[in-house]
Every structure is written in C-alpha cells, then in structure tokens.
C-alpha cells in the first residue's frame, strides 16, 4: 500500500466525520417535521398495543438502567432532551400511547438521527417504554413542586 493512498482515505474519512457531525440545531418541537410529530405516525396496530410489562414491578427500574445505557447520551440524564434529541417529559411523549413510543423505539427516525433500537429484544423495549412513561411531564413536576 502506498502512503499517499492511505492518507487520501484517512482524509476522506476524517472530512466525512467533520461534515456529518458538529454543532446541531435543537430538535423542532412542533410542526410536521418535528420529532414529536413522528409519534403520531405510529400505525394504529402499534398504538393499540398494550405494554405487556405494565404490571411488572421491575420494569421501570430495568427501563431506567437501559435508558442510562442507551438513551441518556442524547436525551440527557433527566430525559429533558438537548441539542441532539427531544425532551421525553414533554406532553407529546407522556400523552402518547405506549405502543406509539414502542413503535418509535423499534423503527427509529433514521432521517433525524434517532437510531433503530430493534436490536434490543421486545421486552427490553417495553421496559424502556415503562420507564419513559413513569417520568411524567414537566408541567406535572412543576405543579407538584408548587411552581407556577
């Protein structure tokens, strides 16, 4: 292998990293292009699904561990979102059907950088849904804390 070929490949790869990454726009909250709007695109078949682990006492705790391992990087430790990913305590998420959240986890939103999590077995995805739904909304938290 000639050195210049290696250098060309390295430069191409590195420029690809720079071109595809970097400072990002915060995700849009509303409108047809928003990540929250994707929840509404979940097929009825998925929306109608009932979380089979809804009564499982360990599901929320296990979902919390999975969230820490897979989701926290983008959605934040408190799931309040950030530059890369939306707030999961938003009403749009908390009011969504568990099946719709499961559908997003299964399919991702690949054009908007939300990865596909179908590689996690179904029970783990439902554990994540249990955890996300247990977070409650920002508004509910403010009310409980006596904030206006």
């Amino acid at each position, binding site marked *: 292998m000639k050195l210049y070929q290696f250098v060309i490949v390295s430069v191409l790869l590195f420029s690809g990293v720079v071109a595809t990454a970097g400072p990002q726009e915060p995700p849009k909250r509303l409108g047809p292009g928003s990540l929250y709007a994707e929840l509404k695109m979940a097929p009825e078949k998925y929306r109608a699904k009932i979380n089979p682990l809804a009564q499982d006492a360990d599901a929320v705790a296990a979902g919390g561990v999975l969230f*820490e391992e897979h989701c926290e990087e983008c959605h934040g430790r408190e799931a309040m979102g950030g530059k890369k990913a939306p707030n999961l305590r938003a009403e749009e998420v908390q009011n969504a059907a568990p099946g719709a959240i499961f559908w997003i986890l299964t399919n991702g939103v690949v054009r908007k950088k939300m990865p596909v999590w179908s590689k996690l077995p179904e029970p783990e995805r439902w554990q994540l849904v249990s955890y996300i739904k247990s977070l409650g909304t920002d508004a509910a938290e403010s009310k409980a804390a006596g904030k206006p």
Partner: protein
Amino acid sequence: MRTIPPNSLLLFVLRLAALVSGSLNLLASPPASHSQENPYIVAYDHNLEEPGSLEVEYFSTFGTQRGGPDFHAYWAEFEYGATAWWTTELYLAGQTTFGESTLFTGYRWENRFRPLKNEHLINPVLYAEFENTNAADKILKEVEGHDVEADYAVPNALARQERTREMEFKLILSSNYKGWNFTENTIATKNLSNEPWEFGYAMGVGRPLAMKGAAHRCNLCRQHFVAGVELYGGLGDRYSFGLRDTSHYLGAGLAWNLPSGWTFRIEPTFGLNDNSHQFLLRWGASREFSGFGSMVGGLFKGRQE
C-alpha cells in the same frame, strides 16, 4: 455566519492538541451509551452504528494451515456512524505467519447504507467496500470465489508482492424477530484488474441469553451475552458458479456487551470441507465512543453566529 480566525495555523495546532486531549479523555472516561452487538465476526446484520459514535475494534484470527505454518492475522476497525442510515469504516490489517514474518497487509474502506426508513420483517442494507491488500492477507473477513486453504500456504515473501485491489458489494438481509437475529449476506467481488466477479455468502443467527433487562446495573447479567452461529463460504465466480473448489466454515460465537461500552467476542470456527482451514479461532474486543462526531465537529466547525 462562521468566523475564521486570522492566526489559523496556531488555532489549527491548538485544535489538534485539543482533539488529541479530547480523544484521551474519551479513552479515559466511560462512554454514556453502549451497543448491543451480535457475536458475528464475518456476517453483518442491519444494525448500523449510532450516529456520531465511533467504535474502535480489534480482531484476531488464529488459523491452522496444512502444507505450511499456522498463522495469526489481526485487524483494527474504526467504525463511525455518519448518520442513522450510513456507517463508514476503515480497516487496517496485518498478519504473522509463524516461522516466517509479520507484515502489514493493507486496508479496506467500507460503507453500509440502510435504504428503508422503517423496520421491516426483512431489512436490507447495501454494502460497498474498496479493498487494497496484498495476497498475504489472511484475516478471512469474508470468503468468496474459489478461496481455498492452499492459497494461504504461499510464503509471505512471495505473497506480499501481489497487490489486490477489489470492490466488494454485499446485500445484507437481516431480521430481528422475538429477540432473535437472522441475517444473510450475499457477496459479489470484482478485482479491479481484469478478473471475473466472485461470489460468496455469509449467514448468521444470534440471540441474547436473556430477553429482559435487569433492574440493576450489572456486567454479568445474562442480557449482556449474545450467542450465535455463523456459516460462510465461497460460491465460485462468474464462469464457474457453485460449490466446486470452494471453502466453507461454521463458527459458534459469543459476544459479551458490557455497559461500559466494551464488547468482547470469541468464535471457534471449523472448516466444513477439505478446501477449508480445519480450525480458526477468532476473537476481538471493541469499544464504542459516543459523541465522537460532535467532539470533532465542534473543534473544526467553529462557533455559529
């Protein structure tokens, strides 16, 4: 509007230093997310790298060789999730043939694209790779055409003189169903010199040892282990398609995905006919670094005004 500093050389040096220091920080601190990898070493599934994540991987293959000395081949992979639908990867490979020599055998640059937006029963991924190696390459990352064990008995001193530049294409069809992963790869390779198209296949089945996550953080919980089997081999070339004069392998693998971002794999593999190496032992370690793209982009793109 982007600002361009006047003393750009100094800034470039500072940024380079920051990049090196940032990389060291990434190495020193645990990444916030980890991947759930299947145990395959040859077959690909449809799960791409998470966007912005860099996975650094090291793999080894120890192989027995009839008619020549055994060998240990190894390669490093740098796998980057450019987007959620595009993963790009650079390989650097080398090998040691016992009693002969150790040498660098070349590089590969591969790209995988996920054309469909949603998850389906069967999920296609398109794969394109440029390969620039010499004939001493023994990593057996794929088996194609009429690759047979005798090809690997050529002494390093001779084999290294033959340069191979190839384009390799794969159609990856993969399914995740009830915790199982099933994948099938169809391989077509074209040597850029005037040689015919060569074909091969790889398929795999894998499953985590537990379907549910544990309610506490742990390293040895069963859900972190994924067991699987993979089968791969050559299918001849354009002029002699089929199983004649081809080699085939069956491997049983285990992957251990640690919450810290490390994955360890081991796969004993057995040759299935007289054209195959009788035994290969493959193993590897990889670590995923989340946020690598943001870190690099932040360094080089400057502030937005």
